[in-house]
């Protein structure tokens, strides 16, 4: 029987903890405030329709994703997918974001995987639901399915019709997700494939609650963390008498070298933090390498090389007759630098901890917190609520862990902890520095016949994943958890293999453990690898005496890749760079299996000042089936501009003690007077599976800018960022 006869509100296994807060609004993303609803002790397994989709008693449909809205617009795309299969208007579909005990454990919202994973689960669940509902009515009325239709929440027959809520009476479709005989998103495309505007922007422009930062609870109190002098400093004393006399003081939480304070008003905590950071005494030593260039330090501390790919003859044989070229590239540490400092709200009462977090992975965070706090997972609930754009693993998990530690010491009140700007800039885990060395040989026809790549990288993800040491406060507790190990090495070699047709290829990877905290930043290693490979391709094209786009096409047999480059050429064919200007191009296929993306940049360089302005950027992206081309366009535009900022401005600086890039003046990013105009073409291929798009632009955008700078100046910059000193004559 397709339909469960167990009512969903009375079903055993539901426990009311008043946590899943459902908004009163129709359609769009559910607000995080509003009336309480019951949540499941254990959600249905992911192969069930009701794990992803519920028919509400008011006839609306709720879809449940284990992913988070991070500003990438995933919410709208997921609603489009469900509305399409259920033939329902989008404002009758509401979205529930990642929440422990409610949604599926979909790991992290990362790697441009949300459409490919959560999106396809929701699509299949909705299509299965449609087919089961029609079958149910067909049996009930004894009419052939072919004579029935599902439209805007009602099933119509020739003579009668019935609403879904009348049909289901509050029960859910507890059935296995099958292989639907038809996907309307592939054929009809009433919502899917269309540039549907995001509903949440309409809420944002009037200041409706959307962000975690805007959640308020009765009697909520405010926390701040007192930061140590260095990563491994130990607290000697707070150096302040009469802490209790500070305005609004409620509680000091001092566990080992972890120091948090709670006050009644938020600004009281801000001031007390500042005062304690001045007065506190720390045992610390200078621990960061500043006497030698970072690239040298990286090479000094790296592990022995590991050959990750070897094809054909490798690089080392009888090459005297070939035209050789080699070059070395580097990128510094760069930061996520969220515009909104990380925030969390924690509430501990009667042995149960509730957290509101903008973490990218509520389940992995819960698992890790359970170890850190020595509490069973079932006593911790985490609700995902959007924060500011994070572009990867920023301070979201750290601040949640800190708020949790505070809450355990101060039960019964909601504790709101927001990081200050300096907390975010100086303590988040950065995108690691990397060194990339390339060698290649060309034959007399200008074809690449040897390719060797040597790569140095720290791990690219120290997300929680069950290891308490990945959470910043863990280092400072009595029980020293130390620094997390290595992290995700796969991130370093991401896109280290060129997408070009190369027969003789060798890639060597050297892992190192760098001086700064590092974790996943948009694109991971793909960013630096593509920057290096695509810069080098331009250098080789020049050596071969070929047009850079032709040179790439000569080594590219994948038609979709070729199409991107050809369309990019078309988009820029009328651009004639003026004196001091240059145009550059680059291409990559993210992860060599996700979106194809080709980018061009027109730059202008003032040699007397060395200042670079990117005037315009063009992008062509093929993400397979485009669920929402407008969302893909927005992500690609933003990715290009963010990448331009990384390329031209960004570098995390540190002294022997700690990071000194602590705000927007000491860590400048691209601002309005310097941002390019952008133009993006989205190639929609409904017959293909959808491919992750959100990170595709990062690598090629920077390479296109560097290639353009070379065309404008004849100077090849191989170390990021492109500061004006590097180009000043």
């Amino acid at each position, binding site marked *: 029987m397709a339909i469960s006869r167990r009512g969903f509100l009375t079903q055993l296994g539901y426990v009311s903890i008043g946590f899943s807060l459902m908004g009163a609004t129709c359609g769009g993303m559910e607000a995080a405030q509003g009336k309480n609803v019951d949540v499941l002790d254990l959600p249905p397994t992911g192969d069930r329709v009701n794990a992803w989709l519920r028919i509400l008693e008011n006839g609306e449909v709720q879809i449940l994703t284990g992913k988070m809205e991070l500003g*990438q617009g995933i919410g709208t795309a997921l609603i489009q997918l469900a509305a399409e299969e259920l033939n329902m208007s989008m404002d009758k579909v509401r979205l529930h974001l990642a929440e422990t005990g409610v949604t599926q454990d979909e790991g992290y919202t990362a790697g441009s995987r949300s459409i490919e994973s959560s999106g396809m689960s929701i699509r299949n669940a909705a299509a299965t639901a449609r087919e089961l509902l029609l079958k149910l009515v067909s049996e009930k009325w004894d009419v052939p399915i072919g004579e029935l239709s599902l439209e805007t929440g009602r099933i119509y027959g020739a003579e009668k019709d019935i609403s879904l809520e009348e049909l289901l009476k509050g029960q859910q479709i507890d059935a296995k997700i099958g292989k639907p005989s038809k996907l309307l998103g592939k054929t009809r495309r009433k919502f899917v494939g269309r540039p549907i*505007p995001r509903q949440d*922007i309409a809420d*944002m422009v*009037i200041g409706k609650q*959307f*962000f975690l930062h805007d959640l308020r609870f009765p009697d909520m109190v405010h926390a701040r963390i007192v930061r140590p002098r260095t990563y491994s400093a130990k607290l000697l004393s707070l150096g302040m008498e009469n802490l209790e006399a500070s305005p609004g003081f409620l509680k000091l939480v001092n566990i080992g070298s972890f120091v948090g304070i709670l006050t009644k008003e*938020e600004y009281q905590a801000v001031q007390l933090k500042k005062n304690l950071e001045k007065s506190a005494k720390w045992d610390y030593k200078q621990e960061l390498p500043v006497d030698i260039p970072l690239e040298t330090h990286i090479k000094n501390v790296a592990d022995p090389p590991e050959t990750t790919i070897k094809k054909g003859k490798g690089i080392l044989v009888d090459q005297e007759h070939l035209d050789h070229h080699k070059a070395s590239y580097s990128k510094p540490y760069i930061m996520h630098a969220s515009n909104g400092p990380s925030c969390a709200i924690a509430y501990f009462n009667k042995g149960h901890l509730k957290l509101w977090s903008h973490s990218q992975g509520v389940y992995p965070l819960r698992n890790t917190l359970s170890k850190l706090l020595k509490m069973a997972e079932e006593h911790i609930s985490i609700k995902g609520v959007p924060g500011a754009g994070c572009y990867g693993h920023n301070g979201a998990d750290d601040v949640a862990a800190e708020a949790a530690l505070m809450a355990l010491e101060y039960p019964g009140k909601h504790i709101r902890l927001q990081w200050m*700007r300096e907390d975010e800039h100086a303590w988040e885990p950065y995108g690691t520095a990397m060194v990339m060395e390339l060698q290649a040989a060309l034959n007399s026809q200008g074809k690449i016949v040897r390719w060797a790549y040597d790569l140095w990288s720290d791990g690219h993800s120290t997300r929680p994943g069950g290891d308490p040491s990945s959470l910043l406060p863990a280092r400072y507790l009595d029980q020293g958890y130390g620094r997390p190990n290595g992290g995700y090495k796969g991130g370093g070699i991401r896109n280290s293999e060129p997408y070009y047709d190369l027969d003789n290829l060798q890639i060597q990877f050297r892992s190192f453990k760098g001086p700064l905290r590092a974790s996943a930043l948009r694109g991971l290693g793909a960013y630096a690898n593509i920057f290096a490979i695509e810069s080098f391709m331009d250098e080789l094209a020049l050596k071969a005496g070929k047009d850079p786009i032709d040179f790439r096409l000569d080594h590219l047999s994948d038609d979709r890749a070729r199409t991107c480059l050809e369309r990019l050429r078309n988009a820029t064919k009328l651009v004639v760079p003026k004196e001091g200007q240059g145009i550059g191009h680059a291409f990559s296929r993210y992860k060599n299996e996700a979106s194809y993306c080709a980018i061009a940049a027109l730059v202008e360089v003032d040699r007397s000042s060395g200042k670079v302005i990117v005037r315009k950027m063009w992008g062509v992206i093929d993400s397979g089936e485009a669920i929402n081309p407008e969302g893909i366009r927005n992500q690609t535009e933003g990715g290009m501009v963010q990448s331009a900022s990384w390329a031209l401005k960004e570098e995390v600086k540190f002294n022997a003690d700690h990071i000194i890039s602590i705000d927007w003046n000491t860590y400048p990013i691209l601002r309005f007077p310097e*941002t390019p105009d952008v133009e993006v073409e989205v190639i929609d291929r409904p017959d293909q599976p959808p491919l992750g798009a959100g990170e595709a632009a990062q690598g090629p955008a920077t390479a296109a800018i560097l290639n353009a700078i070379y065309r404008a100046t004849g100077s090849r910059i191989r170390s990021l960022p492109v500061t004006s000193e590097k180009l000043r004559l």
Partner: protein
Amino acid sequence: MAEIYLHLTVNGIDHSLEVDAETPLLYVLRNHLRLNGPKFGCGLQQCGACMVLMDGESVPSCRLPVKVAARSEIITLEGLVGAEGQLHKVQQAFVDEQAAQCGYCINGMIMASAALLQKNPSPSQGEIREKLSINICRCGIHDRIIKAVIKASKLK
């Protein structure tokens, strides 16, 4: 740092508050008046996330002592909405142009743009860029924001 009573006019409503007079306006708007528009971004007047209109000019509120703000007319993002709920033309244009990704900066972008259009009803692209130069957008959607402001300048 004694708490005092002061009067603050926000979005046309007069509030009597008991606060520490040195508290920056931002904290009073968010925590006392429960407004979501102005956001904490840096607390250093470097990013514009906390912008409000003070006597018609866009200013960061994160360091502005509330006692100073009390002498002026304060408008927040919420206060741009008309009496019948109609959006301000800048708000409408940001929706139309889908000028947001994460949306954390949108408050400052809209407040600064509203102040600009008040003084200069048809700004050039250069003037828009200059006006918004304090406003940080980390998602990189500057181009959409500029298009939204130009669009707003053409709306009634």
